Every structure is written in C-alpha cells, then in structure tokens.
C-alpha cells in the first residue's frame, strides 16, 4: 500500500510521458501505436489511482516517509465550519523565491482527491479506448492522443495540486488542451472560431481567478492548501479574512471567494460565461465527453469544493452568489435544451444545467452532495456523449448523409447530429441503445440509478437547509431534465428511421450547390431499404460504453444510507457528516423525474413521422420555442455589446497612437527642424555674412546640412561622441559653481 502513496506523482506523470512520447518520438507516425501508448500508460496510472484510493480509504498516510494510519473524523461540518479530512500525502519542493519566503509546489492527496483521481483516470481511460475506434479514420489520430494525454495529465495534476498556483497552472493547461481539441479539425471555420471563443471566454474567468489568487496570496503569504501556519485554511487566518474589509466594502473572504468563483463561472460554463460550451461541441465527440462533460468543466466545481473554507469564511455572502448562479444556470440551461435538435448540443446544455446543480449544491453547503453529483455525472454524461458519438458515427454512414459528405463534410456532420433525422435506432444500434438508456435514466434521476441518489442528495440538502426557492428551482430543472432527455431518447431510438430524407444543415461558410442538395434530400428514397446493411457497432466503441454504463448504474451505491458500516460510505470516507436521507424528498424527486419522462413520452409519442415536421412544443408556443432554440440570443447580445466595444476600443487606441501621440512626436520634430533652420539663418547669414549674402547663405545652409547627413556610420558616431564629450567638458570645467 505504501507504494501507491509514495508513487502518487506517477499518476499525472504517466499521461504526461505518453504525451511526450507521442509528440517527440517516431510513435507519432503510427495512429495505432500512439493510441495504445496513451492507453497503456493511462491504464497504469488508473491502477495507481485505484490503489491510492484503496490506501487512503484505509486511512493510510505518509508522514516524513513513515507510513501511519489516520483517525477518520466525523461530523466536521458543524459549528466549527467546514474542514477537510487529514491529508494522506503532502510532498513539496521549493519552486521560486518570493522575497524572504520561498514558494513551494507539490502534491496533496486526501480522500476526496483520491476519489477524484480514480474517477478521472477511469473515465479518461474509457474515453481513450473509445477514441481509438472513433478517430481511426482521422489521419492525425496520434496528434489527438498526444493532446488528450496532456489534458489528462493536467487534470490529474490539478486535482493533486498542493497549492492554488499549481492548481491554476494545470487549470490553464487544460484550457490550452480544450482550445487545441475543440479546434482539432482546424480547417473548419466553425471549429477554430469555437476554439478561440472557448479560450477567450474561459480566460475572462481565469484572469479574475488569477486576481483572486493574487489577493489571497498577498494576505496569507502562501497559497498552500492546509490548515497549518501560513497555509490558506488556517482558522485564525480565515477568521481574519472574514472580519476585515477590503476593496468595495466587501470582506476579504467575500472578495477572494467571488474572484475565485469567476474561474468556476468560466471553466464550468456557468451563466453569464456559459456561451463557449455549446460551441465547444465542434470538437470531436470523445473530446466533448472527456473535457466538456466529465472532467474539465467539473474542475470549476472542484475549485469551489477545494477552497470551500474561504467561501464559508464570510458568513454566507459568497455562497449566496454561488447558489444563485448555480441554480439559475441549472434552470436556464435546462430550458434551452428543450428546443435544440443537435444531439450534442442538447447534451451540452444538459451539462451546463447539471454543473449548475453541483454549484448550487455547494452554495447551500451541500459539499458532499455537490462532489458526489460531480462523480456520478462524470460517468453517466461521458456515457451519453460516447453513446451520441456512436450514434453519429453510424448516422454518418447512412446513404443520404454519406452522399452529402462528399459535397460538404461539415454539413454532413451537422446533419448526422440532428435528432430529427434519426429515429428507430433502438434495433439498429442495440448496444448503444441499452447503454444510452441507462445513462439517460441516470441523468433523469430514476431510482435506483446513480443520478437519482446524487441529485436527491442535493435536493435533500436544499430542503433540509430551508432553501425553498433553490429547492423549487432545482426540482423544476430536474423535471425539465427528465423531459428533454425523454424527448431526445424517444426521437433517437423510437419510431421509424427518418434519415432517408434528412433535414439538411445549411452551412453558412459553404452554401451547397442547389442541385446536389436536392439529390441528397430526396433522391435517396428509392434505395432506403438497403440502408440496414450500414449499421454497425464496433467493439472498441461498445466496450467503454458498457464500463461507463455499469458505473452509471452502480455509482449511486457509494453514498447510499446503508452503503458502509456507518452508512454513507463516501461521506464517511471524506470525513463529512452524512446527509440525512429524507423519504419525502426522495419521493418528490422520483415523482418529478417520472413526471418529466411521462410528459416527454406523451408529447413526443406521435411527433416527427418525417424529419421536416414541426416540433410539438413549437406548435404550441412558436415564439418561445424560437427564443429557446436561439439560446435566448445571448451570443448575439454579446457580439453586439462586448464584441463591438472591443473592436471600437481597438480602433480608438490605434487612432490615438497614429494621430495624437505620433502627431505630437512629428510636430516636435518639425518644430525642431524649423528652429534649427531659423537659428542657422540668424547665425550664419545675419551675423556672419550680412544681409547681402542672404541668398548664397541659404544655398550654403542646404549644402552644409547635406554634408551633415552623409549616411556614413563613422560620421554619425563621431558626432555622437563629440556631442557627449563637449557636453561633459562644458559642464564640468566651464560652468563652475
């Protein structure tokens, strides 16, 4: 067991090694070899992470190289405020000098960290394996693996960081990987635009988070996690942060917590910085599953969880904001998901909404519930995305879309992602159907799947804490979740296949030739019966689905009221008080889920016989549906306000440079020349040659000036030195005091 603790550093190091190997050695020339390298090293890291979880679950800890056993605390979240379990491992090395102190960097492992590491490695491994099949047709598959290996390394390092600076550094590297992978198909304008958008929008949150770190470090003298002297969770320090007031009349704790939370808003795509995540779906589907559903976007939630004592230190102001943003996003995103047709976009908005659940859970003090939902969500959302990938993969092979593919690859892909063009895939993709169904039921919160338990715990916390508004909002969001997922599931898997006459995506970058479009839209119908031959599910795609589905089913078991000797195994593991299980809340939550499912089932039971029909919701409320379909037009609003402002400012600063500042410089230059000429005329013509020689003097002045500007290095050098020496001599010897 000691070996897992002592070698914990290998967990992020192995994927990093994979990235380096794939990038810099000849492995990069082979798609398969690079993929298996990444998978092999990650599998090793997964074993280490699971071993580490086992070791920490037993309470083993490494103190100065000695193996000891920790007493596990209970009920720490009482009067004294939130406390973390004792760390199992802290390793630090000096990193950079900072005045009279030294900034150290290192690893910090406690039980929540070990749990996160296990989740990240397992989910990432599944997605790595899936990618091997999914990206097989892409000639740049090795590059893909080097990016996701780097991403995984960064995510693991962030999880294990012993201080917030290292946390932030890994966090930003994940942002880089997200940028690279969203823009992986870099020849598509939509892809690289989405990549830049994702990077810049999250960077807005990130720089504010950076300011929060700077603020915190200025007050504490370090950024190290821990409760010791000079560490950021030191009780005396937290009390001081909560009492003293900083800028804008906020307490230090509020200011720091809100700035840190800006990082969460960016990274976890909370309103109002959520706009990048739906566009991020331009990335390959495994990327959406790994980065934009399971791990990176959850990092924002993890940040709040990791710095929770600071959020708590101000007596509830910061957590109030957290709750508001989380609950609002949960509902807001759920409504948008109602009116989307793109299978990945629905899942993306669903991710936003679920992240909102987690953030709101943390905001109302449900630390365990929030983190628990993070873990279960990672598995079932990754499962749903991979299932969607499997569906899209199959859809792209259907004749109508395959034909479109030759004309316009991007339009073909978008058409393949449109749920209106699917239908009846239940029999055609059985493995995908069954696993997807489990993921869907888990997300909808149906007993006894993972999502039910974790979502129920959040609702129970809201109920117990007396947050009535939060409870209602989240319950409503949960209802909508069940509804839109049923809509999607029903349209994708049931009814007749509608893909022979798809709703063709019109690519604004590349308008398809009219005749061709007609042929793809309708010409395919006579041959539609032959299409069943194309449906297939590759084992490389199915195996990860099955693994993830098993977690989606069983994930909830870890924190059941009866899952351990003291009940609530995870709460116990994390050293927290167990949430009280409320049968009433569980019943409400189940009713809400079933209600949503029933509504969806009924409403979409007879909808969409052909792909071109109007959505039943649109028939009932066309205006609202358009608004939701356009995602409340937030993008357009931002483009019209911030986008224009930035462009205008760029023009304004350029204008100031060119006309005002440079104008002054040129003006001074001209004035100097003028004065010089005047001086020359006075000296040389009036005083020396007299008025009669005025004309010849002017000529001479020109000649003399010309002679000055010989353009030869030595001359200029001579003048320069001459000037310096003369000035020195004049001032030192002639002007005597």
């Amino acid at each position, binding site marked *: 067991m000691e070996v897992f603790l002592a070698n914990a550093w290998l967990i992020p190091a192995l994927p990093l090694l994979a990235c380096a190997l794939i990038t810099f050695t000849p492995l990069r020339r082979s798609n398969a070899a690079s993929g298996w390298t990444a998978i092999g090293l990650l599998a090793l890291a997964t074993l280490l992470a699971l071993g580490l979880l086992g070791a920490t679950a037993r309470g083993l800890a490494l103190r100065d190289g000695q193996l000891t056993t920790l007493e596990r605390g209970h009920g720490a979240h009482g009067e004294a405020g939130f406390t973390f379990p004792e760390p199992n491992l802290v390793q630090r090395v000096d990193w950079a000098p900072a*005045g009279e102190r030294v900034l150290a960097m290192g690893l910090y492992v406690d039980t929540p960290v070990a749990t996160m590491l296990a989740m990240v490695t397992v989910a990432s491994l599944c997605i790595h394996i899936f990618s091997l099949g999914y990206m097989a047709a892409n000639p740049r598959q090795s590059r893909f693996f080097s990016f996701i290996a780097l991403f995984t390394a960064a995510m693991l390092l962030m999880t294990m960081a012993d201080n917030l600076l290292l946390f932030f550094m890994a966090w930003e590297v994940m942002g880089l990987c997200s940028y690279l992978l969203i823009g992986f198909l870099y020849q598509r304008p939509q892809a690289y635009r989405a990549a830049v958008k994702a990077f810049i929008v999250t960077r807005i949150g990130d720089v504010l988070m950076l300011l929060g770190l700077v603020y915190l470090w200025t007050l504490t003298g370090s950024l190290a996690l821990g409760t010791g002297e000079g560490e950021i969770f030191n009780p005396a320090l937290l009390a001081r942060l909560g009492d003293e007031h900083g800028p804008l009349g906020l307490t230090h704790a509020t200011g720091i917590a809100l700035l840190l939370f800006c990082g969460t808003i960016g990274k976890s795509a909370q309103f109002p910085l959520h706009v990048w995540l739906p566009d991020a779906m331009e990335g390959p589907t495994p990327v959406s599953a790994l980065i934009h559903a399971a791990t990176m976007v959850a990092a924002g939630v993890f940040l709040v969880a990791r710095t929770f004592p600071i959020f708590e230190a101000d007596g509830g102001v910061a957590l109030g904001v957290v709750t508001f943003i989380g609950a609002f996003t949960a509902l807001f995103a759920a409504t948008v998901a109602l009116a989307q047709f793109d299978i990945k976009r629905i899942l993306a908005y669903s991710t936003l909404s679920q992240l909102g659940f987690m953030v709101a859970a943390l905001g109302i003090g449900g630390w365990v519930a929030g983190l628990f939902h993070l873990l279960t969500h990672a598995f079932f959302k990754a499962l749903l995305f991979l299932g969607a990938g499997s569906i899209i993969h199959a859809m792209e092979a259907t004749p109508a879309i395959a034909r479109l593919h030759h004309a316009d690859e991007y339009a073909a892909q978008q058409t393949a992602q449109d749920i209106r063009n699917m239908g009846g895939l239940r029999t055609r993709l059985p493995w995908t159907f069954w696993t997807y169904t489990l993921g869907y039921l888990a997300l909808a919160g149906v007993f006894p799947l993972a999502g039910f338990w974790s979502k129920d715990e959040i609702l129970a916390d809201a109920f117990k804490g007396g947050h009535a508004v939060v409870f209602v909002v989240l319950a409503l969001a949960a209802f909508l979740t069940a509804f839109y997922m049923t809509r999607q599931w029903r349209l994708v898997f049931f009814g007749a296949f509608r893909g022979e006459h798809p709703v063709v995506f019109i690519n604004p970058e590349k308008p398809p030739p009219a005749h061709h479009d007609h042929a793809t839209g309708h010409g395919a119908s006579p041959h539609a019966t032959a299409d069943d031959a194309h449906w297939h599910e590759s084992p490389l795609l199915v195996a990860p689905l099955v693994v993830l589905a098993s977690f989606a089913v069983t994930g909830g078991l870890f924190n059941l009221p009866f899952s351990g000797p003291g009940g609530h195994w995870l709460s116990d593991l994390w050293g927290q008080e167990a949430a009280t299980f409320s049968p009433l809340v569980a019943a409400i939550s189940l009713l809400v889920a079933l209600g949503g499912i029933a509504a969806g089932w009924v409403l979409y039971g007879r909808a969409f016989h052909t792909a071109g029909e109007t959505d039943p919701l649109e028939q009932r409320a066309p205006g609202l549906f358009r608004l939701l379909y356009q995602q409340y037009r937030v993008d357009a609003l931002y483009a019209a306000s911030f986008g224009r402002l930035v462009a205008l400012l760029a023009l304004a600063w350029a204008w100031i440079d060119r006309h005002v500042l440079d104008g002054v410089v040129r003006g001074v230059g001209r004035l100097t020349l003028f004065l010089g000429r005047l001086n020359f005329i006075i000296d040389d013509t009036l005083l020396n040659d007299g008025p009669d020689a005025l004309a010849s003097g002017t000529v001479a002045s020109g000649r003399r000036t010309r002679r000055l500007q010989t353009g030869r290095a030595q001359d200029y050098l001579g003048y320069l030195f001459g000037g310096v020496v003369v000035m020195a001599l004049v001032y030192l010897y002639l002007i005597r005091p």
Partner: protein
Amino acid sequence: MTLPAYLLPSPDGVPWLTLLMLSPLAGLLLVGLGSWLRLDERTLRLGATAWTGVPIALAAVVWSRFDPGATAAGQGVVQLVERVPWITAIRVDYFLGVDGLSLPLVLLTVVMAPVAAIASWGVVERPRAHYALLLLLEAAMLGYFLALDFFFFFIFWEFSLVPAYFLIQGWGRDDRRAAALKFFVYTMAGSIGLLLLFQVIYLAMRQAGLPTFNLIDLGRLGRSLPVEGVEGSLREILFAYMERLGVAGALGRYPLLYTSIAFWAIFVAFGIKLAVWPFHTWLPDAYAEAPTAASILLSAVMSKMGAYGMLRIMLPLVPDASQYFAPVLGALALAGIVAGAFGALANIGGDIKRLIAYTSINHMGYVMLAIAAAAAAPGGATIDSRAIAVNGAVMQMVAHGLSTGALFFLAGCLHARTGSWLLADYGGLRVAAPAFAGVMGTALFANLGLPGLAGFVGEFFIFRGAWATMPLFTALALIGLVITALALLLMFQQLFLGPLREGLSRVPDLRPAELGTMLPVLGLLLLLGVYPAPVMNLANATATQLVAIFQNLLT
C-alpha cells in the same frame, strides 16, 4: 584599490566581465579579417554565428562564479567586479560588475545573439557589414548591462543606438529611414536630461567631498546607505548643492522638488526606451521596419535596457521621488498595457510585425507596473510583495525576450517563404507546415502567458507584487491579459487555421536550421516556466535589498 564589502572581485582574478564584453568585438575583428581574406559569405555567416557561442560560454562562466544569495551592507553584492581608475580628472573608473538585476539580462543578451545571427542568414546585401553591426550591438548591450560607472553606462547606452540605427536603416523595409531616424532621435533626445542630471550630480558630489559617477555608490547614497568618504543621503547632497547655487532660493526649499526633477530626467530617458505609454510610438515603426535580426535584438534585449536603467538608477538614486510619482508610473503602465493590447488587436489582418510589436508594448507595460508597484508608498504591503514584483519584472523581461524574439524570428521565416508581412495574405498554413505551426504556437502561448511556459511566471509574480500596492491598476491590467491573448490567437488563426489559401501549398515546413534555433529558445521557455528558480533566484536577494527602502514613507 580596496573594495567595500558590497563589491566582490572575481574569485580567480580573471577579468571575466571584460572578456565577456570584448568577445563580440573580437568577433567583429574576425569578420573584418574574414572579409580581408575574402572568405566566402557562407563561411562568414557560419563563423559569425558560431562566434556568438563564445559570449555564451563566457556568460556561463560568469554565472557559475556568481553567488545569487550574497548580500552585504544593505544591498545585493555586486560580483566579479573590475574597477580601475580611468579618467582621474573627472574620477571616472573602469567599473564593471554583475548583480542579480544585470546577470539575467546579460544571459538573455548572449542567448538571443545567435538567434539574431541565424535570422540574418538570408541577408544577401552586404552581409559582412550586417554581421559586424550585430556583433557591435551585442557588445554595446553587454557593456550597458555590465558598466557600473555612469560615464561608461551612458556611452554604451548611446552607442548601442548606432548599430541598431544602421541595421534598420541599411537592411529594413520600405519605411526604414523614417523609422530609424525616429527611433534614434527619440531615444537620444530623451536621454539629454539624464546626461545633464549626472553632470549636476557629479558637481553636487564634488561639493559633498566625493566626486563620482559610480552608480553603486550613488545608489547607496540615494537609499541613505553608508558610503565611505561622504556623509548624508543623495537627496541632502543635491539639495545642499542647489542651495549653494541659489536655485533653492529661487525655486523653493523643498528637497523633493530637486529629486523629482532628477526623477523625471531619468524616467523620460528610460521610459522612452521601455516604450512606456505615451512614449511608445517609435516602437511599432522601429520593430516593424527593422530587418528580422534587428527586430529580435531590439525587442528581446534593447527594450529591457530601459527597465534595467530604472532598476539600476531610478529606484536607488531617487527613491523618494520614485515613491511619490509611483501612482503616475502605475497609470502610465496601465495605459501602455491597454494600448498595447488593443493596438495589437487593431493589427489583425495587418502587419504581423506591428502586431507583435504592440504586444511588446503591452508586456513592457507589466514590467513598468511592477517597477511602479515596487516603489509605491507602503499601504500595508510587505517587503515580500515588492521583491516579488521586481522578481516578476526580471522574469517577465527574460521570458518576453525569449518569446518575442522567437515570434519575430518565425515571422521573418514566414516572410522569407512568401514575401508578405500582411496577415491577410496568409491562411491555413498548418496544412502545409504543421511543425511550423506547432513551434510558432508554442512561442505564442509563451508570449500570452500560458502557465508551464516562462511568460506566466513573470506575469503572475508581477500581478502578485503589484496587487499589494496598486490593486486598482492591477485589476484593470487584467484587460491586457485577455485582449493580448485574443490578438495573438486571432493572429495564429489567420496564419495557420482554416482552409489552405491558394498559392501557399508549396510553402515549406520548418527547416532543420530553423527548428534547431527555436528548440533551445522554446526549451528555455518551458524550463523556466516549469521551474523558474534559476532566473528568479538570481534576482531575489538583490531585489529584496533594493526595495527595502520603500517600506518607509519617504516623502
């Protein structure tokens, strides 16, 4: 002559710094010899490039003999000191030495010289003169960072303009003459005040009993640290001299007034060089019109001469005025950060070199912010905060030198391939040149401050240090972080992403020589980003001692 405790001669008696400073000049002689022997251009190119390894080796020796932690008598110990009386009539010494502020920049200079040398391989017109000027420029910049007597310091300061001027003027682009003249005259004009100031300081010191141009001693006097042979602080000495001249009677009996005048004389000179807003307009012209090698050396090293001057002269000599005017400096720094960022954004689709030049203005704004914050009045800030700001500034200078140098180098490579500087003429190059895109992307992310690469460390430490004394300016400076990133990413997008533009399909990928040049630079950026201690340890002790005085209210 016996040296005080804060000056430490070379441990083995070898004048390493003189050798270091003269080594590029020896290269210059070799170039001359080579052309006299009528060696072909290829040999000359390779020879001159190889010779830039000699200063690197010597600098490495200097580094190995430097003890970064040494402090004595309230300052970082100046090491490997060589001090010989030179012009006894005006007490000018030949006085070289390195401390934690100059050594990182010396190392940066020697590292960037070969990059510039390789970037000039494509020069066909008068290559001998081109190489001669490059080596001359390197020598002048090294001399500037090593000289500790104002007389030599100033000579190197002015002298470095000459090769830069001729490089721009002789090998630059279409508007080179105007740009070169503007660059030259602007910097010259700005430093007149500095020159006059030091005459006055010399005379004041003579009255106080110790006529000197010794920057270390003057810096100690400025900070009220004891110097043998003279009593009082520089502020009192200047004021006494002003009273003696009768100026104080006429202008007012405020000591701060005279240090303020001194401060502005110093600040304008160095501010222009650092391209502090609003003195920055020469920079985009000069960087853009210069040939690639000169762009590299100008942006990577020369702009740092301004910041170094502020740290070496402005903060120690007139700390009271520096502290008094720190808010003004902070505001100018902020203006530069924002102006640079938006200026870069305005060049999307325009000239690639102008875009990079504007990001340089932005980055130098952070350095200015750090210097202002280090000097600002104590508002409960710890000495650590100030030291962190200065450490961050040094790190930022090194990181920016490496990454911007790399970007200019790569921009030059692009131009050599397509003949265009206009971003609008590019598109989709990643298809044709994937390795090029990867290398340029790395340099660009280093430039925009991605963690794991050196630029981030500098920026983070600057923000950390600046927040303690100037929270508002620091918060507003965040705009620069976002907008610069946007501008650079859009530049990358314009160059490399999207469908390949017609006519670019035959553009060759990165050549081995180019890759070989970039890999060490990018490797250093990565190394310092992951483990910045090698550079920051150099600066930390000196910086901590330097900023100690600002913990007191000086005005």
